[in-house]
């Protein structure tokens, strides 16, 4: 079972993603939430997270900075990281991939798109 961390400043999106994960036929354990990159780093220190789903545009610390910090840590460098964002510009996607994101989902998204993107990670 894999514990998942959802990082998004929107409680609405966190709630929607929680629902999608619960309904997915995947071995998902606990689902944790963080409202920005700084909160996410705190959760990563306390919990054994197996997958991160993160927005890009967030206050205090955005998703790309979070991804960069995660990949710089020896303990987290192999942690699968999927970006879920409205920022679908080619440069943003390339930046996320270059930093080590294993997937990119554009908002708005369907639950099928999320499941499809995650299916290869389990």
């Amino acid at each position, binding site marked *: 079972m894999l514990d998942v961390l959802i990082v998004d*400043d*929107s*409680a*609405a*999106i966190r*709630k*929607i993603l929680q*629902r999608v994960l619960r309904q997915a036929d995947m071995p998902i354990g606990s689902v944790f939430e963080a409202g920005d990159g700084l909160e996410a780093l705190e959760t990563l220190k306390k919990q054994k997270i197996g997958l991160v789903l993160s927005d890009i*545009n*967030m*206050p205090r610390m955005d998703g790309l900075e979070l991804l960069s910090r995660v990949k710089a840590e020896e303990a987290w460098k192999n942690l699968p990281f999927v970006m879920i*964002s*409205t*920022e*679908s*510009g*080619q*440069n*943003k996607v*390339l930046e996320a991939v270059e930093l080590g994101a294993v997937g990119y989902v*554009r*908002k*708005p*998204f*369907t639950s099928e798109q999320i499941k499809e993107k995650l299916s290869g990670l389990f």
Partner: protein
Amino acid sequence: MLTAQINDSVSQAEMVGFNSTATRDAFSTMLGQEIVPAEAFVKRSATTAASGVVSLMGLAGKWTGTDSLSCSAAFACRLSSLLLMDECDSRDENVLDGVAEITNMIVGNVESEIEQRLGPMGLTVPTVIFRNKFSNSKCRKQQVDRGAFPVGGRVHARAALPGSKPRGCWTLRTTGLPDPSFSANVSERD
């Protein structure tokens, strides 16, 4: 590295198209509602006092300005209920958060389209305001005083949920565009 050629102009028709597509996409995918954009038209008059919910996002880059989406409190409640698949109270914080996220999806996708022409742009997080009565005219004055919004052009993308109760409309405005010809309005067809 970006390979797309940067073209520093976006026509009014293209701008309307970006807004219409982003709004239709967000409503269809996240709310399960198909909407039909109506004919675009220019609106230059100052906005009078209004009530309801306004969600604002700032854009910065070659163009600098603000996108704002507005609707009635009841309609915001309806949108958030559809988004969260849960009943929302009009004064519930979830309603404002739902409106913020729909704004983020629409404006974020418009920004991505504009970025291909104008180069990299920054986007703020949404700020959502609920009030019984407020006026945009004071805000417009402040924008002109700061000099950051030289023209105050507007793009409205207005949509309605067919057959929904309460009925309402969803308005998207873009201010600060460099050319007044970008002022446009997309509204629902009866």
